[in-house]
């Protein structure tokens, strides 16, 4: 057939030379390549990351486990607008919105908040569309945490108890907002009181 693009590069399959027909040169070449790797590995330069003891660095934009962020004062950012649920191609997010009552201003930033917010981690495909959809920068996919494997199916419905960012500054995601220890302490105290 004629050339369609004028950029064709014909790959000619050369017939085997006598040396190639004798098997051995190619075999020795292959053996020498693997032996090089053997010595490299034997001198402790394997590329393997010994996983539970060592962890490969993740990219700072890796899409890992979700977190519901708090703002600078420790209030939940989520306003239960439902955009993340709409944007989710797996339909993994469900939420129930509620009105913020008087006296809860320290807990929720907006007048509306999510009474319950659940992500079904088994359905979730970690595509990041919810993070992109959130107009309040409330839901984030953390780059340094992954959803752990579990034994039971119902354990994968992550409610607010597991999603909302903890107040402990040590436990925060690296992309999270770092509180000063005083802020954190104040926050923890406030959280401990019944709303």
């Amino acid at each position, binding site marked *: 057939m004629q050339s369609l693009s004028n950029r064709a590069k014909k790959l000619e399959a050369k017939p085997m030379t006598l040396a190639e027909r004798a098997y051995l040169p190619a075999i020795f070449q*292959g053996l020498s390549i*693997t032996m090089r*790797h053997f010595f490299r590995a*034997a001198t402790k330069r*394997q590329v393997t990351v*010994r996983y539970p003891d060592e962890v490969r660095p993740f990219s700072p934009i890796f899409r890992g486990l979700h977190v519901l962020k708090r703002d600078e004062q420790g209030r939940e950012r989520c306003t239960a607008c439902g955009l993340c649920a709409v944007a989710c191609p797996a339909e993994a997010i469900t939420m129930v919105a509620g009105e913020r009552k008087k006296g809860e201003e320290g807990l929720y930033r907006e007048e509306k908040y999510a009474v319950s917010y659940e992500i079904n981690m088994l359905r979730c495909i970690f595509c990041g569309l919810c993070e992109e959809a959130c107009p309040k920068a409330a839901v984030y996919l953390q780059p340094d945490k992954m959803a752990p494997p579990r034994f039971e199916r119902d354990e994968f419905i992550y409610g607010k108890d597991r999603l909302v960012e903890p107040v402990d500054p040590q436990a925060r995601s690296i992309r999270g907002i770092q509180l000063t220890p005083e802020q954190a302490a104040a926050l923890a105290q406030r959280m401990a009181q019944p709303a």
Partner: protein
Amino acid sequence: MIELPTLGWQSIVILVVFGVSLLIATYCTYAERVIAAFLQDRVGPDRAGPFGLLQPLADAVKLFTKEEFFPAGANKALFILGPCLAMITALMSSAVIPFGNVIQFGNNVFNLQGIEVNIGMLWVFGIVSLGVYGVMIGGWASNNKFSLLGAIRAGSQNISYELAMGMSLIAVLMISGTLSLREITLQQSAAGEWHFWNIVKQPLGFIIFLVCAFAETNRTPFDLPECETELVGGYHTEYSSMKMGLYLFAEYVNVFVASAVMSVLYFGGFNFPFQYELRDWFVNNQGWALTSAQNLISVLGLLGLFAKIFGFIFFFMWVRWTLPRFRYDQLMRLGWTILIPLAIFNILLTGGLILGGIIK
């Protein structure tokens, strides 16, 4: 100089040989994993015990406690017989390998060999060719098409390559004039020099033997009977539990035996360079008795033989993780049209050289 050993000593040696064969086969699985890992820039098992050294034990215990299984429509007796046969024949052939020279305590001379028979080589061959029945029976009894294909492949492959293997050996026999493996070893010990080893006289024969050894042990590039990307598991597809473990062990015992035979036939067995000089040095300079010096040399020779064997085992694994495998018809063509003619040519060449007095 060699006395007939007592029956007790013989059984002890045989038990030890069996045990050592099994141990080596067991740790071959570990070695295979680690070597494969290193060849592939990986680490290999390192979580079962220190450096993963308990890995083979874990595998063995797991296999022993796994459910026994008989596929529907399988012939039960044959289904059990298959792996047993494979294992028994693999172990039997190691009985005649001369692992070391004699050890002398006073008037008692102990031979580091299971049984010394003057047809040792024939014994090895006879037993090894029986081994294929284990594979064939197992593959046939499984009542599975993949197993059957594997069994057919194993049968034709082993028979074809045994021919070339045997013929490459005839040249060795022509040089040595004996079938006893011990004799062949001792002949290579003249002055203890490496150039008395048969490899120098028989390079071509060795290469043929090596290729055939790969085929006989069903190792890549000749692992067509199991060949997991084509036949799933080949002849052992339907086997579970320790029956499958027996097949795996049999393969490694075969590798061990093949390595041992190669070391004995071509690489001087338990001989090592300058062994007599070393003995004389101990006798003359250190004032040792001749017997104890000789015993030391025997022990060193034993270790040397094992070093050679391990070298070959490593080579088997190195090749396995490097080369692609043949296709069935290409394998047959290689056996019948290249190796057998080469082996015949090797016989003629050796004959000519012997007649010409160049080698003896």
